[in-house]
């Protein structure tokens, strides 16, 4: 898929249209900004790291049933996504006290919260993304009540899944920021990215930062941090199931299919026009990264015979 037109350029990403109306390409940049753009730098490898980390996490979320805009990763920096209309709301979910919450409420950084805290901000660069509450959202028509409820549920569920996941990466998920969007059908999708730019990640059981705070606070080792998180995320296998369907090519007589067709007809199911029989394989895979290509490769090299068979596959829960 090719980039057609630059639609938007943000601090860390560019969004392009594609020839397909419902798909965008997100390009991850190496640029980092902080404090509303006051601090700015190039961090080599950051774009690539965030692209890979986000891809993997979106894949995990897909398996776990969280709808998100991710379709597939196209290259080291490019990600193909579903085009959705972004709600002008930033959702922040916190598991431990840090950042603005510590400042605002005068709490110790690192304090465990009894339950996750959801905060909402109104997306506006001029207003510096001010915090709002649910009433604001509804009163200003930023989202309907149903949409807001869905967004809240999806946020909490995503948080649960990612706490577990990052724990396996030996990281504490302190807090993170989400954006949501909806498609033309009105279905709500988790959007944007999930990476050290949008998550606060600490070494498990410590307050050592492995995220953008290293950059914000000039802690050094910024490039290494992104790389480290990328490595850890890549190396955690997610057990998932690939369902592969192998069928004879349409041009080839499917004797089995014809026999089944005749049997169905003789049982009175005269509405059946055609039957194609195939093979269904289910592969339980410990996925790291680039598995779509790996599965494709498996299909081409062994599972299907390209001379006479077609295949299609999908990840299933």
């Amino acid at each position, binding site marked *: 898929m090719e980039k057609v037109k630059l639609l938007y350029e943000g601090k860390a990403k560019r969004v392009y249209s594609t020839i397909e109306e419902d798909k965008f390409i997100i390009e991850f940049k190496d640029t980092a900004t902080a404090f509303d753009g006051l601090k700015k730098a190039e961090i080599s490898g950051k774009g690539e790291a965030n692209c890979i980390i986000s891809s993997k996490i979106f894949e995990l979320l897909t398996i776990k049933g969280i709808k998100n805009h991710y379709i597939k990763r196209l290259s080291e920096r490019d990600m193909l996504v579903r085009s959705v209309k972004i709600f002008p709301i930033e959702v922040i979910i916190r598991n431990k006290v840090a950042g603005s919450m510590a400042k605002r409420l005068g709490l110790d950084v690192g304090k465990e919260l009894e339950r996750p805290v959801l905060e909402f901000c109104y997306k506006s660069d001029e207003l510096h993304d001010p915090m709002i509450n649910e009433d604001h959202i509804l009163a200003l028509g930023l989202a309907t009540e149903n949409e807001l409820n869905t967004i809240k549920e999806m946020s909490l569920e995503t948080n649960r899944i990612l706490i577990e996941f990052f724990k396996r990466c030996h990281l504490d998920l302190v807090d993170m920021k989400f954006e949501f969007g909806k498609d033309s059908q009105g279905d709500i999708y988790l959007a944007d990215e999930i990476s050290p730019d949008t998550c606060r990640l600490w070494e498990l059981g410590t307050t050592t930062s492995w995220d953008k705070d290293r950059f914000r606070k000039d802690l050094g080792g910024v490039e290494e941090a992104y790389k480290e998180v990328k490595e850890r995320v890549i190396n955690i296998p997610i057990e998932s199931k690939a369902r592969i369907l192998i069928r*004879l090519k349409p041009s*080839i007589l499917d*004797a089995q299919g014809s*026999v089944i067709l005749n049997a169905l007809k003789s049982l009175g199911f005269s509405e059946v026009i055609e039957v194609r029989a195939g093979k269904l394989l289910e592969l339980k895979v410990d996925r790291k990264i680039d598995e779509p290509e790996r599965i494709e490769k498996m299909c081409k090299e*062994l*599972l299907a*015979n390209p*001379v006479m068979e077609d295949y299609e596959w999908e990840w299933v829960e």
Partner: protein
Amino acid sequence: MGVGRVSFGIVVFPGTNCDRDCYYVIRDILNQPVRFIWHKDNDLKGIDCIVLPGGFSYGDYLRAGAIARFSPIMSNVREFAEKGGLVIGICNGFQILTEAGLLPGALGRNKTLRFICRYVNLIIERNDTPFTSEFKNGEIVRMPIAHNEGNYYIDELSKVKNLVVLRYYGENPNGALDNIAGIINERGNVFGLMPHPERCSEKVLGSEDGLRIFKSIVRSL
């Protein structure tokens, strides 16, 4: 190597079951040197002709021949073929050769959806190969088949126009495209066929037509 001494190597995959039958014909009927080659070995020293025998390599699971083609020996077989060595694949061996891309096309499930084991009539289409020189062109011979997947398919028949060595004659038992029962590669040193020549190489078994394939190989070398 003296005249008429041709060394055969029979590759044994897990699940191969016609290896000993081929061995018997080559050693006891043809009186030629022969040895088994385990699929994990890679020593083809002194071998003049490689036989990929019939059977159910890897249980024919997934597709007949699909897994066997990844056995270590197959890269040696490929190399051997590239150097011009003779390779004959019988039944499952033919399936392995197509899966490995050493022969064009593929072998699909019989149109009857059943295993078929019986004698069929075949017509010799080419006797200018090292495997069929003992036959006449257009000659009708009888050999047994025994397979589930012998339905030869290729997307464009023109690709094998001049490569067909054997065709089913009269009745087509499995639905094979253009009645194809055996084909050879462009270079003329890799031959695959669905019928089992080793099963009809002795009078006591009802036919000796198969022995002529082995004799052709010996004559050509």
